[in-house]
């Protein structure tokens, strides 16, 4: 697979153990998390992942390797389980009543579903940006950014201030909000709110950032800004993005995974590969049909 060849996982052997500890140790310190994120980590491997809502299987046997520090787009027709799949990666799927996951998802060799990984800790390492901007309505702009740090503890006040500015800068929002950090997060425009949510996500220093159709509620200008931001963030984070917009997939992603739906409505992975290849020369006829707009 192309991902295997292009893998740039040159981290020392120690990094793997360190991450294993960070994910599994009850009191992972913010500092050690920060140190670990400087290594070239963030390799996500999904093996035979199935996700169910009660008896209904929404995702079937997905095996997918996600290259560290790159953008992987999940595309496919509505209802093919892309959003469900992405929510299994940060263990959000299981928060719904009756929802279950089988198979394994590992981050740098650590199985996120193993018994000694607390889902809460897994979510600190794998952040998520949602379809509709969802800043906390009772919090100011700066409180929104620091919310993850404040509510998970372990970060001093003086540290937090720096992280807020840094996260807002990385989310390309600092210049627009630096004068009004105390104003409610909900006072911002939709596009700004989404960048605020991205700032909030990266403030807790995750390895992986999941994005579930992050631009679907935004206008084209705001969408463009978020897309530029996604490209920038790929230098530091492994990004998995679900999108309905194929142009968006081709603009932002390095790799594309195409999903479709079986007769029993279970979503499955049709094929995956470098984005350029997927859009010009897909191997499967199904992919070609979808990309050329023949269905979906």
């Amino acid at each position, binding site marked *: 697979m192309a991902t295997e060849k292009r893998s740039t996982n040159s981290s020392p052997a120690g990094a793997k153990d360190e991450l294993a500890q960070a994910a599994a140790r009850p009191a992972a310190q913010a500092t050690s998390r920060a140190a670990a994120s400087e290594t070239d980590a963030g390799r996500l491997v999904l093996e035979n992942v199935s996700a169910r809502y009660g008896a209904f299987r929404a995702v079937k046997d997905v095996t997918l390797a996600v290259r560290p520090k790159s953008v992987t787009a999940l595309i496919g027709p509505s209802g093919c389980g892309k959003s469900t799949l992405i929510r299994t990666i940060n263990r959000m799927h299981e928060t719904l009543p009756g929802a279950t996951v089988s198979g394994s998802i590992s981050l740098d060799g650590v199985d996120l579903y193993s018994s000694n990984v607390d889902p809460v800790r897994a979510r*600190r390492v794998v952040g998520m940006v949602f379809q509709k901007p969802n800043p906390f309505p009772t919090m100011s702009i700066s409180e929104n950014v620091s919310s993850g740090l404040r509510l998970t503890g372990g970060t001093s006040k003086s540290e937090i201030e720096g992280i807020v500015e840094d996260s807002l800068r990385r989310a390309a929002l600092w210049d627009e909000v630096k004068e009004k950090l105390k104003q409610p997060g909900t006072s911002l425009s939709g596009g700004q709110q989404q960048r605020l949510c991205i700032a909030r996500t990266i403030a807790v220093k995750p390895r992986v950032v999941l994005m579930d159709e992050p631009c679907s509620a935004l206008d084209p200008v705001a969408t463009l800004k978020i897309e530029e931001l996604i490209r920038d963030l790929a230098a530091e984070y492994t990004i998995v993005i679900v999108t309905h917009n194929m142009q968006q997939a081709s603009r932002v992603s390095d790799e594309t995974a195409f999903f479709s739906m079986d007769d029993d409505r279970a979503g499955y992975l049709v094929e995956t590969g470098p984005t350029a290849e997927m859009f010009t020369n897909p191997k499967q006829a199904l992919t070609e049909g979808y990309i050329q707009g023949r269905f979906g």
Partner: protein
Amino acid sequence: MSISADSIAKVLTQPTSGEHARQRVNWTMRIIVGVAAILAILPLIALILFVVLKAAPYLVPSFFFNNPLDTEPGILNAIVGSLQLTGLTVLISGPIGIAGGVYLSEFASPRVVAVGETVIDVMLGVPSIVAGVFAYLILVPVLGFSGWAAVAALSILTVPIMMRSTQEVLRLVPQAIREASLALGVPVWKTALFVSVRTALPGILTGVILAFSRALGETAPLLMTARGTNAENWLDFSTTMNAMPIVIYQYAAAASDLLIGQAWATALILMVIALTINVLVRGRTVNSRTA
């Protein structure tokens, strides 16, 4: 099939045979519902007018600042007693009711929620006299006629109110907000407390205020528990306490113009407090909606 311009004009302007009858029915209906509305409001206006007119002559400083046995009698001990009883009731039942509502909204499984909601419905339907008789027959033999027994009886009535209102406002918190918090790696309990409850806090407090208002006007449980007294009682919940509803009940049946007048005056105070609370709550909800 097309209609000529000529026939459209006819359709629009020429009255049909049933039209006059329809207009008559319209007017008749208007008058019927209008009269019904006036009939509905009339007793309310009469009530307010009566209370205000009857109470006015008795609203003198001594009414507010003296006790019943003073030479110029007042109802200070009942005002003080009512505020203590309802205050303590809210202090005790508030945390219980709010915590119960948070549990049902944020933690309970759908099955537990269904059972819990039924229980709350039943508890909301408990007539206050039933809470009173429970306190009278079970608690009074142990605690005596006392503030404690009254607080217990009132709490039976206020806990379900706060539980329901808390659960309902928490239900209005968008799931996306909870998910945002969980996805940041915030534990479930912190998400419930610092995100869900924090977002719903104004609504939760509104429920507390409404429960306070309900407890303030309750009469039956108080007659059977706190019983009323002529003494001023500060914070001694182990013995009898006076309260405004008790005063109204007892004075209204008294053979004295002064006491009957004071019953009207006490009723006016209760009404003003209840009205003020209602207006405050209304203002809050309107504000939070426009904000």
